[in-house]
Protein backbone atom coordinates (compact mmCIF):
# COMPACT_ATOMS: atom_id res chain seq x y z
CA UNK A 1 0.00 0.00 0.00
CA UNK A 2 2.83 2.36 0.83
CA UNK A 3 4.49 1.64 -2.50
CA UNK A 4 1.36 2.51 -4.45
CA UNK A 5 0.90 5.70 -2.46
CA UNK A 6 4.56 6.59 -2.90
CA UNK A 7 4.20 6.26 -6.68
CA UNK A 8 1.04 8.38 -6.61
CA UNK A 9 2.82 11.05 -4.55
CA UNK A 10 5.70 11.05 -7.01
CA UNK A 11 3.33 11.47 -9.94
CA UNK A 12 1.51 14.30 -8.18
CA UNK A 13 4.80 16.08 -7.48
CA UNK A 14 5.82 15.63 -11.12
CA UNK A 15 2.49 16.98 -12.37
CA UNK A 16 2.71 19.86 -9.90
CA UNK A 17 6.19 20.90 -10.99
CA UNK A 18 5.23 20.59 -14.68
CA UNK A 19 2.22 22.84 -14.18
CA UNK A 20 4.23 25.32 -12.10
CA UNK A 21 6.47 25.92 -15.07
CA UNK A 22 3.68 26.62 -17.55
CA UNK A 23 2.90 29.97 -19.06
CA UNK A 24 -0.61 30.53 -17.78
CA UNK A 25 -1.25 31.77 -14.26
CA UNK A 26 -4.23 29.42 -13.87
CA UNK A 27 -1.96 26.46 -14.55
CA UNK A 28 0.49 27.89 -12.02
CA UNK A 29 -2.18 27.82 -9.34
CA UNK A 30 -3.19 24.29 -10.32
CA UNK A 31 0.44 23.28 -10.03
CA UNK A 32 0.63 24.68 -6.51
CA UNK A 33 -2.54 22.78 -5.63
CA UNK A 34 -1.08 19.49 -6.90
CA UNK A 35 2.13 20.18 -5.05
CA UNK A 36 0.27 20.76 -1.81
CA UNK A 37 -1.87 17.65 -2.29
CA UNK A 38 1.24 15.59 -2.86
CA UNK A 39 2.83 17.00 0.31
CA UNK A 40 -0.30 16.22 2.34
CA UNK A 41 -0.32 12.65 1.08
CA UNK A 42 3.38 12.41 1.94
CA UNK A 43 2.66 13.30 5.57
CA UNK A 44 -0.13 10.73 5.54
CA UNK A 45 2.10 7.94 4.29
CA UNK A 46 5.05 8.65 6.55
CA UNK A 47 2.75 8.63 9.56
CA UNK A 48 2.34 4.91 9.12
CA UNK A 49 -0.55 3.10 7.46
CA UNK A 50 -2.49 0.52 9.43
CA UNK A 51 -5.55 -0.75 7.65
CA UNK A 52 -8.79 -0.39 9.53
CA UNK A 53 -7.40 0.48 12.98
CA UNK A 54 -9.02 3.20 15.10
CA UNK A 55 -6.98 5.95 16.70
CA UNK A 56 -8.57 6.17 20.08
CA UNK A 57 -10.08 3.44 22.22
CA UNK A 58 -11.58 3.60 25.68
CA UNK A 59 -9.91 1.74 28.49
CA UNK A 60 -10.46 -1.94 28.67
CA UNK A 61 -10.52 -2.58 24.93
CA UNK A 62 -7.36 -4.53 24.22
CA UNK A 63 -8.01 -5.52 20.62
CA UNK A 64 -6.53 -2.33 19.21
CA UNK A 65 -3.54 -1.91 21.48
CA UNK A 66 -1.37 -3.85 19.06
CA UNK A 67 -1.47 -1.44 16.13
CA UNK A 68 -3.45 1.77 16.56
CA UNK A 69 -3.46 4.40 13.87
CA UNK A 70 -1.48 7.53 14.66
CA UNK A 71 -3.86 10.51 15.00
CA UNK A 72 -1.14 13.16 14.77
CA UNK A 73 -0.42 13.04 11.00
CA UNK A 74 -4.12 13.43 10.34
CA UNK A 75 -4.13 16.61 12.44
CA UNK A 76 -1.06 17.86 10.58
CA UNK A 77 -2.68 17.17 7.22
CA UNK A 78 -5.88 18.95 8.22
CA UNK A 79 -3.93 22.01 9.25
CA UNK A 80 -1.93 21.90 6.04
CA UNK A 81 -5.06 21.52 3.92
CA UNK A 82 -6.72 24.50 5.58
CA UNK A 83 -3.62 26.69 5.23
CA UNK A 84 -3.29 25.60 1.61
CA UNK A 85 -6.91 26.37 0.86
CA UNK A 86 -6.67 29.85 2.36
CA UNK A 87 -3.55 30.65 0.38
CA UNK A 88 -5.01 29.25 -2.85
CA UNK A 89 -8.05 31.49 -2.39
CA UNK A 90 -5.75 34.48 -1.98
CA UNK A 91 -3.68 33.50 -4.99
CA UNK A 92 -6.79 33.22 -7.14
CA UNK A 93 -7.93 36.68 -6.08
CA UNK A 94 -4.44 37.96 -6.87
CA UNK A 95 -4.57 36.32 -10.29
CA UNK A 96 -7.93 37.89 -11.05
CA UNK A 97 -6.75 41.31 -9.92
CA UNK A 98 -3.61 40.94 -12.06
CA UNK A 99 -5.76 40.05 -15.05
CA UNK A 100 -7.94 43.08 -14.42
CA UNK A 101 -4.94 45.38 -14.16
CA UNK A 102 -2.95 44.13 -17.12
CA UNK A 103 -5.41 42.28 -19.36
CA UNK A 104 -3.15 39.27 -19.70
CA UNK A 105 -2.73 36.00 -17.91
CA UNK A 106 0.42 35.06 -19.79
CA UNK A 107 3.35 34.83 -17.40
CA UNK A 108 5.84 35.59 -20.16
CA UNK A 109 4.41 39.11 -20.22
CA UNK A 110 5.47 39.70 -16.60
CA UNK A 111 8.88 40.79 -17.77
CA UNK A 112 7.42 43.38 -20.13
CA UNK A 113 5.10 44.66 -17.45
CA UNK A 114 8.08 45.13 -15.20
CA UNK A 115 9.88 47.34 -17.67
CA UNK A 116 6.89 49.55 -18.47
Amino acid sequence: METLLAIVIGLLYAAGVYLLLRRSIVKLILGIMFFSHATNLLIFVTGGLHKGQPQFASEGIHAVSANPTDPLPQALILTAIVIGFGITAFFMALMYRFYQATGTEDLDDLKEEENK
Partner: protein
Amino acid sequence: MILPALPILIPLITIIFLLFNFIKQKWQPWIGFTGALLQLALSVFLAVRVKTHGILVLHTGNWEAPFGITLVVDAFSSVMLVLSGIIAVSISIYSIDAVDRKRQSFFFYPMVQGLLMGVNGAFVTGDIFNLYVWFEVMLTASFILLTLGGEKKQLNGAIKYVTINLVSSLFFLAGIGLLYGKTGTLNMADLAFKLSQADNNVLLNTSAVLFFVAFSIKAAVFPFFFWLPASYHTPPVAVTALFAGLLTKVGVYAMIRFYTLFFVQDKLFWHPLFLWIGGFTMVIGVLTAASQYDIRKILSFHIISQIGYMIMGLGIFTVGGIAGAIFFMAHNIIAKTNTFLVAGLINRVTGSYDLRKIGGLYKTRPWLSVLFMIPAFGLAGIPPLSGFFGKLILISAGFRAGDYVISFVALAVGLFTLFSMVKIWNEAFWKPRPETSAPFEGENNKLPASMVIPVVFLGIITLTMGFAVKPILEMAMNAAVQLLDPRIYIQAVMGL
Protein backbone atom coordinates in the same frame (compact mmCIF):
# COMPACT_ATOMS: atom_id res chain seq x y z
CA MET B 1 4.03 31.17 33.68
CA ILE B 2 2.54 32.71 30.60
CA LEU B 3 5.55 34.83 29.67
CA PRO B 4 6.68 32.96 26.54
CA ALA B 5 3.18 33.27 25.05
CA LEU B 6 2.99 37.04 25.52
CA PRO B 7 5.04 37.98 22.42
CA ILE B 8 2.30 36.26 20.40
CA LEU B 9 -0.64 37.50 22.45
CA ILE B 10 0.24 41.18 22.44
CA PRO B 11 0.12 41.61 18.64
CA LEU B 12 -3.05 39.50 18.57
CA ILE B 13 -4.78 41.76 21.08
CA THR B 14 -3.54 44.78 19.15
CA ILE B 15 -5.12 43.38 15.98
CA ILE B 16 -8.42 42.92 17.80
CA PHE B 17 -8.35 46.50 19.08
CA LEU B 18 -7.42 47.77 15.63
CA LEU B 19 -10.32 45.93 14.05
CA PHE B 20 -12.75 47.25 16.64
CA ASN B 21 -11.55 50.75 15.90
CA PHE B 22 -11.88 50.35 12.19
CA ILE B 23 -14.36 53.22 11.98
CA LYS B 24 -12.19 55.78 13.73
CA GLN B 25 -9.24 55.93 11.36
CA LYS B 26 -7.46 58.49 13.46
CA TRP B 27 -6.81 56.08 16.32
CA GLN B 28 -5.35 53.28 14.24
CA PRO B 29 -1.71 54.42 14.10
CA TRP B 30 -1.69 55.10 17.84
CA ILE B 31 -3.14 51.72 18.77
CA GLY B 32 -0.57 50.08 16.50
CA PHE B 33 2.21 52.12 18.08
CA THR B 34 1.08 51.23 21.61
CA GLY B 35 1.02 47.57 20.72
CA ALA B 36 4.51 47.78 19.25
CA LEU B 37 5.82 49.65 22.29
CA LEU B 38 4.35 47.02 24.62
CA GLN B 39 6.01 44.37 22.49
CA LEU B 40 9.40 46.07 22.81
CA ALA B 41 9.04 46.49 26.57
CA LEU B 42 8.00 42.87 26.98
CA SER B 43 10.86 41.57 24.87
CA VAL B 44 13.44 43.57 26.85
CA PHE B 45 11.90 42.21 30.07
CA LEU B 46 12.04 38.68 28.65
CA ALA B 47 15.69 39.12 27.68
CA VAL B 48 16.62 40.20 31.20
CA ARG B 49 14.61 37.35 32.67
CA VAL B 50 16.25 34.75 30.44
CA LYS B 51 19.62 36.06 31.54
CA THR B 52 18.79 35.62 35.24
CA HIS B 53 16.47 32.61 35.21
CA GLY B 54 17.70 30.57 32.27
CA ILE B 55 15.51 29.24 29.50
CA LEU B 56 11.80 30.02 29.90
CA VAL B 57 9.41 27.23 28.94
CA LEU B 58 5.64 27.13 28.61
CA HIS B 59 3.83 23.86 27.91
CA THR B 60 0.62 25.08 26.28
CA GLY B 61 -2.56 23.41 27.47
CA ASN B 62 -0.50 21.79 30.22
CA TRP B 63 0.38 18.91 27.90
CA GLU B 64 3.84 17.60 28.75
CA ALA B 65 6.80 18.07 26.50
CA PRO B 66 6.74 15.64 23.58
CA PHE B 67 2.94 15.51 23.38
CA GLY B 68 1.94 19.17 23.35
CA ILE B 69 3.29 22.35 21.85
CA THR B 70 5.98 24.00 23.94
CA LEU B 71 6.93 27.65 23.71
CA VAL B 72 10.57 28.21 24.57
CA VAL B 73 12.44 31.47 25.04
CA ASP B 74 16.18 30.99 25.24
CA ALA B 75 18.91 33.61 24.84
CA PHE B 76 18.87 33.53 21.04
CA SER B 77 15.07 33.87 20.87
CA SER B 78 15.12 36.74 23.34
CA VAL B 79 17.66 38.67 21.25
CA MET B 80 15.51 38.17 18.14
CA LEU B 81 12.38 39.24 20.03
CA VAL B 82 14.04 42.49 21.13
CA LEU B 83 15.03 43.19 17.52
CA SER B 84 11.52 42.49 16.26
CA GLY B 85 10.16 44.85 18.92
CA ILE B 86 12.54 47.63 17.82
CA ILE B 87 11.49 47.20 14.17
CA ALA B 88 7.82 47.12 15.19
CA VAL B 89 8.10 50.47 16.97
CA SER B 90 10.04 52.09 14.12
CA ILE B 91 7.68 50.96 11.37
CA SER B 92 4.60 51.88 13.41
CA ILE B 93 5.81 55.46 13.77
CA TYR B 94 7.16 55.72 10.23
CA SER B 95 3.98 54.53 8.52
CA ILE B 96 1.90 57.32 10.06
CA ASP B 97 2.98 59.63 7.27
CA ALA B 98 4.75 57.33 4.83
CA VAL B 99 1.78 55.18 3.93
CA ASP B 100 -1.08 56.88 2.09
CA ARG B 101 -4.55 57.18 3.62
CA LYS B 102 -6.09 54.66 1.26
CA ARG B 103 -3.76 51.87 2.36
CA GLN B 104 -4.05 52.84 6.00
CA SER B 105 -7.80 52.54 5.84
CA PHE B 106 -7.65 49.05 4.39
CA PHE B 107 -6.13 46.97 7.15
CA PHE B 108 -2.54 48.14 6.86
CA TYR B 109 -1.96 48.29 10.62
CA PRO B 110 -3.67 44.99 11.47
CA MET B 111 -1.56 43.29 8.82
CA VAL B 112 1.66 44.76 10.20
CA GLN B 113 0.71 43.44 13.63
CA GLY B 114 -0.22 40.12 12.01
CA LEU B 115 3.23 39.88 10.48
CA LEU B 116 4.79 40.68 13.84
CA MET B 117 2.66 38.00 15.47
CA GLY B 118 3.91 35.43 12.97
CA VAL B 119 7.52 36.53 13.42
CA ASN B 120 7.32 36.44 17.22
CA GLY B 121 5.59 33.07 17.08
CA ALA B 122 8.40 31.69 14.93
CA PHE B 123 10.93 32.95 17.45
CA VAL B 124 9.32 31.43 20.54
CA THR B 125 8.01 28.11 19.31
CA GLY B 126 9.59 24.82 20.29
CA ASP B 127 7.72 22.58 17.88
CA ILE B 128 8.56 22.23 14.20
CA PHE B 129 4.99 22.04 12.91
CA ASN B 130 4.07 25.08 14.99
CA LEU B 131 7.01 26.78 13.30
CA TYR B 132 5.41 25.97 9.94
CA VAL B 133 2.12 27.50 11.10
CA TRP B 134 3.83 30.72 12.24
CA PHE B 135 5.73 30.85 8.97
CA GLU B 136 2.40 30.71 7.15
CA VAL B 137 0.90 33.45 9.35
CA MET B 138 3.90 35.64 8.60
CA LEU B 139 3.75 34.75 4.91
CA THR B 140 0.05 35.50 4.50
CA ALA B 141 0.40 38.85 6.27
CA SER B 142 3.33 39.65 3.98
CA PHE B 143 1.31 38.69 0.88
CA ILE B 144 -1.38 41.14 1.91
CA LEU B 145 1.07 43.91 2.75
CA LEU B 146 2.85 43.35 -0.55
CA THR B 147 -0.31 43.66 -2.64
CA LEU B 148 -2.13 46.32 -0.61
CA GLY B 149 -2.80 49.17 -2.99
CA GLY B 150 -3.06 47.05 -6.09
CA GLU B 151 -0.60 48.86 -8.33
CA LYS B 152 0.52 46.92 -11.38
CA LYS B 153 4.10 46.46 -10.30
CA GLN B 154 2.97 45.30 -6.86
CA LEU B 155 0.82 42.58 -8.43
CA ASN B 156 3.66 41.65 -10.72
CA GLY B 157 6.13 41.28 -7.87
CA ALA B 158 3.52 39.54 -5.75
CA ILE B 159 3.03 36.68 -8.21
CA LYS B 160 6.71 35.81 -8.10
CA TYR B 161 6.91 36.26 -4.32
CA VAL B 162 3.80 34.20 -3.60
CA THR B 163 4.74 31.31 -5.88
CA ILE B 164 8.28 30.86 -4.65
CA ASN B 165 7.40 31.25 -0.99
CA LEU B 166 4.52 28.80 -1.32
CA VAL B 167 6.86 26.23 -2.84
CA SER B 168 9.27 26.84 0.03
CA SER B 169 6.49 26.22 2.58
CA LEU B 170 5.55 23.01 0.83
CA PHE B 171 9.14 21.80 0.95
CA PHE B 172 9.22 22.63 4.66
CA LEU B 173 6.03 20.62 5.16
CA ALA B 174 7.44 17.65 3.27
CA GLY B 175 10.54 17.76 5.45
CA ILE B 176 8.40 17.81 8.59
CA GLY B 177 6.40 14.84 7.32
CA LEU B 178 9.51 12.78 6.65
CA LEU B 179 11.13 13.72 9.95
CA TYR B 180 7.97 12.81 11.85
CA GLY B 181 7.79 9.48 10.09
CA LYS B 182 11.34 8.71 11.11
CA THR B 183 11.36 9.93 14.71
CA GLY B 184 7.70 10.05 15.79
CA THR B 185 7.92 13.45 17.39
CA LEU B 186 7.55 17.10 16.45
CA ASN B 187 8.97 18.72 19.57
CA MET B 188 12.37 20.28 18.94
CA ALA B 189 13.88 19.20 22.25
CA ASP B 190 12.61 15.64 21.84
CA LEU B 191 13.95 15.55 18.29
CA ALA B 192 17.33 16.69 19.56
CA PHE B 193 17.27 13.96 22.19
CA LYS B 194 16.17 11.22 19.78
CA LEU B 195 18.55 12.24 17.01
CA SER B 196 21.51 12.36 19.35
CA GLN B 197 20.92 8.71 20.11
CA ALA B 198 20.04 7.46 16.63
CA ASP B 199 22.77 6.51 14.21
CA ASN B 200 20.84 5.64 11.08
CA ASN B 201 21.48 8.91 9.35
CA VAL B 202 20.55 8.05 5.78
CA LEU B 203 16.85 8.62 6.31
CA LEU B 204 17.50 11.93 7.99
CA ASN B 205 19.38 13.39 5.05
CA THR B 206 16.25 13.79 2.95
CA SER B 207 14.43 15.84 5.54
CA ALA B 208 17.61 17.79 6.36
CA VAL B 209 18.02 18.77 2.72
CA LEU B 210 14.32 19.64 2.38
CA PHE B 211 14.60 21.90 5.43
CA PHE B 212 17.76 23.45 4.05
CA VAL B 213 16.07 24.25 0.74
CA ALA B 214 12.96 25.62 2.46
CA PHE B 215 14.91 27.89 4.78
CA SER B 216 17.29 28.94 2.04
CA ILE B 217 14.39 30.13 -0.05
CA LYS B 218 12.98 32.02 2.94
CA ALA B 219 16.35 33.49 3.84
CA ALA B 220 17.20 34.40 0.22
CA VAL B 221 20.42 32.44 -0.03
CA PHE B 222 22.15 31.56 -3.30
CA PRO B 223 20.77 29.98 -5.52
CA PHE B 224 17.28 30.60 -4.19
CA PHE B 225 17.19 34.34 -3.77
CA PHE B 226 15.73 35.53 -7.05
CA TRP B 227 12.32 36.28 -5.62
CA LEU B 228 13.71 39.02 -3.38
CA PRO B 229 14.88 41.63 -5.89
CA ALA B 230 11.86 40.88 -8.05
CA SER B 231 9.36 41.81 -5.38
CA TYR B 232 10.87 43.86 -2.57
CA HIS B 233 11.03 47.14 -4.45
CA THR B 234 7.34 47.22 -5.39
CA PRO B 235 5.38 48.06 -2.20
CA PRO B 236 5.64 51.35 -0.30
CA VAL B 237 8.95 51.84 1.45
CA ALA B 238 7.59 51.27 4.97
CA VAL B 239 6.50 47.76 3.93
CA THR B 240 9.84 47.05 2.25
CA ALA B 241 11.67 48.18 5.36
CA LEU B 242 9.57 45.85 7.51
CA PHE B 243 10.20 42.92 5.16
CA ALA B 244 13.91 43.66 4.86
CA GLY B 245 14.36 43.72 8.59
CA LEU B 246 12.37 40.69 9.58
CA LEU B 247 11.33 38.21 6.92
CA THR B 248 14.65 36.91 5.69
CA LYS B 249 16.06 36.90 9.20
CA VAL B 250 13.35 34.48 10.36
CA GLY B 251 14.64 32.08 7.71
CA VAL B 252 18.18 32.50 9.04
CA TYR B 253 16.91 32.03 12.62
CA ALA B 254 15.20 28.77 11.64
CA MET B 255 18.33 27.54 9.91
CA ILE B 256 20.53 28.32 12.90
CA ARG B 257 18.02 26.72 15.27
CA PHE B 258 17.69 23.52 13.23
CA TYR B 259 21.34 23.03 12.43
CA THR B 260 22.62 23.67 15.95
CA LEU B 261 19.89 21.87 17.86
CA PHE B 262 19.19 18.63 16.10
CA PHE B 263 20.81 18.26 12.69
CA VAL B 264 24.29 18.10 14.15
CA GLN B 265 25.29 14.62 13.03
CA ASP B 266 26.60 15.19 9.55
CA LYS B 267 29.01 18.05 10.23
CA LEU B 268 31.43 17.14 7.47
CA PHE B 269 28.76 17.65 4.84
CA TRP B 270 26.79 20.60 6.14
CA HIS B 271 29.42 23.00 7.40
CA PRO B 272 31.46 23.21 4.20
CA LEU B 273 28.16 23.49 2.31
CA PHE B 274 27.16 26.46 4.48
CA LEU B 275 30.52 28.09 3.89
CA TRP B 276 30.32 27.63 0.12
CA ILE B 277 26.73 28.82 -0.09
CA GLY B 278 27.49 31.75 2.21
CA GLY B 279 30.44 32.73 0.06
CA PHE B 280 28.49 32.58 -3.19
CA THR B 281 25.60 34.50 -1.66
CA MET B 282 27.87 37.26 -0.42
CA VAL B 283 29.68 37.66 -3.71
CA ILE B 284 26.73 37.47 -6.08
CA GLY B 285 24.57 39.72 -3.92
CA VAL B 286 27.10 42.49 -3.71
CA LEU B 287 28.14 42.33 -7.37
CA THR B 288 24.55 42.64 -8.57
CA ALA B 289 23.94 45.40 -6.03
CA ALA B 290 26.80 47.39 -7.49
CA SER B 291 25.21 47.39 -10.94
CA GLN B 292 21.77 48.77 -10.04
CA TYR B 293 20.56 52.36 -10.20
CA ASP B 294 17.34 52.19 -8.21
CA ILE B 295 18.08 52.75 -4.50
CA ARG B 296 15.63 50.10 -3.39
CA LYS B 297 17.05 47.54 -5.81
CA ILE B 298 20.59 48.22 -4.60
CA LEU B 299 19.46 47.73 -1.03
CA SER B 300 17.45 44.59 -1.92
CA PHE B 301 20.46 42.90 -3.50
CA HIS B 302 22.43 44.07 -0.55
CA ILE B 303 20.15 42.17 1.85
CA ILE B 304 21.12 39.00 0.01
CA SER B 305 24.81 39.75 0.36
CA GLN B 306 24.54 40.33 4.10
CA ILE B 307 22.58 37.10 4.57
CA GLY B 308 25.67 35.38 3.21
CA TYR B 309 27.63 36.62 6.22
CA MET B 310 25.16 35.08 8.65
CA ILE B 311 25.26 31.72 6.84
CA MET B 312 29.06 31.93 6.96
CA GLY B 313 28.82 32.38 10.74
CA LEU B 314 26.69 29.27 10.97
CA GLY B 315 29.12 27.34 8.81
CA ILE B 316 32.11 28.23 10.99
CA PHE B 317 30.24 26.65 13.92
CA THR B 318 32.42 27.82 16.77
CA VAL B 319 31.26 30.05 19.61
CA GLY B 320 32.88 32.98 17.83
CA GLY B 321 31.23 32.12 14.52
CA ILE B 322 27.71 31.77 15.84
CA ALA B 323 28.06 34.74 18.19
CA GLY B 324 29.29 36.71 15.18
CA ALA B 325 26.27 35.57 13.17
CA ILE B 326 23.90 36.66 15.96
CA PHE B 327 25.63 40.02 16.44
CA PHE B 328 25.65 40.52 12.69
CA MET B 329 21.94 39.70 12.51
CA ALA B 330 21.22 42.28 15.20
CA HIS B 331 23.31 44.96 13.48
CA ASN B 332 21.93 44.11 10.07
CA ILE B 333 18.26 44.17 11.04
CA ILE B 334 18.64 47.65 12.48
CA ALA B 335 20.88 49.12 9.78
CA LYS B 336 19.04 47.57 6.82
CA THR B 337 15.64 48.78 7.97
CA ASN B 338 17.18 52.16 8.63
CA THR B 339 18.60 52.47 5.10
CA PHE B 340 15.23 51.65 3.60
CA LEU B 341 13.57 54.27 5.79
CA VAL B 342 16.17 56.82 4.68
CA ALA B 343 15.47 55.84 1.06
CA GLY B 344 11.86 56.74 1.78
CA LEU B 345 12.99 60.12 3.10
CA ILE B 346 15.10 60.66 -0.04
CA ASN B 347 12.05 59.87 -2.15
CA ARG B 348 9.99 62.35 -0.15
CA VAL B 349 12.34 65.23 -0.98
CA THR B 350 13.31 64.32 -4.52
CA GLY B 351 10.31 62.42 -5.87
CA SER B 352 12.28 59.52 -7.21
CA TYR B 353 14.25 56.43 -6.26
CA ASP B 354 16.34 56.50 -9.43
CA LEU B 355 19.93 57.53 -8.70
CA ARG B 356 20.41 58.94 -12.18
CA LYS B 357 17.70 61.53 -11.65
CA ILE B 358 18.55 62.90 -8.21
CA GLY B 359 21.52 64.55 -6.64
CA GLY B 360 22.87 67.39 -4.59
CA LEU B 361 21.22 66.41 -1.34
CA TYR B 362 24.38 67.11 0.61
CA LYS B 363 23.89 70.82 0.03
CA THR B 364 20.13 71.02 0.38
CA ARG B 365 19.62 68.54 3.23
CA PRO B 366 22.81 68.09 5.24
CA TRP B 367 21.03 66.41 8.13
CA LEU B 368 19.58 63.83 5.80
CA SER B 369 23.12 63.08 4.69
CA VAL B 370 24.16 62.38 8.27
CA LEU B 371 21.11 60.20 8.80
CA PHE B 372 22.03 58.22 5.69
CA MET B 373 25.69 58.00 6.56
CA ILE B 374 25.15 56.22 9.90
CA PRO B 375 23.33 53.11 8.66
CA ALA B 376 24.98 52.99 5.24
CA PHE B 377 28.53 53.15 6.52
CA GLY B 378 27.49 50.89 9.35
CA LEU B 379 26.51 48.32 6.73
CA ALA B 380 29.78 48.88 4.90
CA GLY B 381 31.72 48.13 8.06
CA ILE B 382 33.40 51.40 8.95
CA PRO B 383 34.46 51.72 12.58
CA PRO B 384 33.20 52.61 15.13
CA LEU B 385 29.78 51.64 13.80
CA SER B 386 28.25 48.25 14.56
CA GLY B 387 28.94 46.67 11.18
CA PHE B 388 32.67 46.88 11.71
CA PHE B 389 32.46 44.80 14.88
CA GLY B 390 30.07 42.34 13.32
CA LYS B 391 32.42 41.67 10.44
CA LEU B 392 35.44 41.66 12.74
CA ILE B 393 33.96 38.97 14.97
CA LEU B 394 32.89 36.84 12.03
CA ILE B 395 36.15 37.10 10.09
CA SER B 396 38.39 36.57 13.10
CA ALA B 397 36.29 33.53 14.05
CA GLY B 398 36.77 32.27 10.50
CA PHE B 399 40.53 32.72 10.65
CA ARG B 400 40.76 31.08 14.06
CA ALA B 401 38.73 28.09 12.89
CA GLY B 402 40.94 27.63 9.87
CA ASP B 403 38.37 28.63 7.22
CA TYR B 404 40.72 30.96 5.36
CA VAL B 405 39.01 31.08 1.95
CA ILE B 406 35.66 32.26 3.24
CA SER B 407 37.27 34.85 5.48
CA PHE B 408 39.17 36.37 2.57
CA VAL B 409 35.97 36.33 0.51
CA ALA B 410 34.16 38.09 3.35
CA LEU B 411 36.88 40.75 3.48
CA ALA B 412 36.69 41.32 -0.26
CA VAL B 413 32.90 41.50 -0.18
CA GLY B 414 33.20 44.11 2.56
CA LEU B 415 35.12 46.26 0.09
CA PHE B 416 32.40 45.87 -2.54
CA THR B 417 29.74 46.62 0.06
CA LEU B 418 31.52 49.87 0.74
CA PHE B 419 31.48 50.54 -2.99
CA SER B 420 27.73 50.09 -3.31
CA MET B 421 27.04 52.32 -0.31
CA VAL B 422 29.44 54.98 -1.59
CA LYS B 423 27.68 54.74 -4.94
CA ILE B 424 24.38 55.74 -3.35
CA TRP B 425 26.19 58.46 -1.40
CA ASN B 426 27.85 59.81 -4.53
CA GLU B 427 24.84 59.70 -6.76
CA ALA B 428 22.19 60.90 -4.34
CA PHE B 429 24.07 63.25 -2.06
CA TRP B 430 27.40 64.32 -3.43
CA LYS B 431 26.95 64.97 -7.12
CA PRO B 432 24.95 68.04 -8.14
CA ARG B 433 21.43 67.55 -9.39
CA PRO B 434 21.49 66.62 -13.09
CA GLU B 435 20.20 69.35 -15.38
CA THR B 436 18.15 66.96 -17.46
CA SER B 437 15.84 65.77 -14.69
CA ALA B 438 12.47 67.42 -14.34
CA PRO B 439 12.09 69.79 -11.37
CA PHE B 440 10.26 68.36 -8.39
CA GLU B 441 7.77 70.71 -6.82
CA GLY B 442 8.01 69.13 -3.40
CA GLU B 443 11.69 69.88 -3.17
CA ASN B 444 11.44 72.22 -0.25
CA ASN B 445 8.97 70.07 1.66
CA LYS B 446 9.54 69.78 5.34
CA LEU B 447 10.03 66.13 6.22
CA PRO B 448 7.31 65.03 8.65
CA ALA B 449 8.55 64.30 12.16
CA SER B 450 6.96 60.88 12.19
CA MET B 451 9.24 59.83 9.33
CA VAL B 452 12.40 61.27 10.85
CA ILE B 453 12.02 60.02 14.42
CA PRO B 454 12.37 56.29 13.61
CA VAL B 455 15.41 56.97 11.45
CA VAL B 456 17.06 58.87 14.29
CA PHE B 457 16.03 56.15 16.76
CA LEU B 458 17.54 53.37 14.67
CA GLY B 459 20.63 55.46 13.97
CA ILE B 460 21.19 55.95 17.69
CA ILE B 461 20.89 52.20 18.20
CA THR B 462 23.49 51.57 15.48
CA LEU B 463 25.84 54.05 17.13
CA THR B 464 25.22 52.50 20.56
CA MET B 465 25.91 49.03 19.23
CA GLY B 466 29.16 50.33 17.85
CA PHE B 467 30.33 52.25 20.91
CA ALA B 468 29.06 49.80 23.53
CA VAL B 469 29.99 46.57 21.82
CA LYS B 470 30.94 44.61 24.92
CA PRO B 471 27.54 44.01 26.56
CA ILE B 472 25.88 43.17 23.25
CA LEU B 473 28.72 40.87 22.30
CA GLU B 474 28.38 39.17 25.67
CA MET B 475 24.70 38.56 24.97
CA ALA B 476 25.56 37.10 21.59
CA MET B 477 28.29 34.89 23.08
CA ASN B 478 25.91 33.69 25.76
CA ALA B 479 23.33 32.81 23.13
CA ALA B 480 25.96 31.05 21.00
CA VAL B 481 27.20 28.96 23.93
CA GLN B 482 23.61 27.93 24.64
CA LEU B 483 23.02 27.07 20.99
CA LEU B 484 26.12 24.94 20.65
CA ASP B 485 25.17 22.74 23.61
CA PRO B 486 21.75 21.21 22.86
CA ARG B 487 21.66 19.49 26.23
CA ILE B 488 20.82 22.79 27.97
CA TYR B 489 17.76 23.18 25.75
CA ILE B 490 16.69 19.54 26.14
CA GLN B 491 17.13 19.78 29.90
CA ALA B 492 15.00 22.90 30.13
CA VAL B 493 12.14 21.60 28.01
CA MET B 494 11.98 17.92 28.85
CA GLY B 495 13.79 17.76 32.15
CA LEU B 496 16.03 14.93 30.93
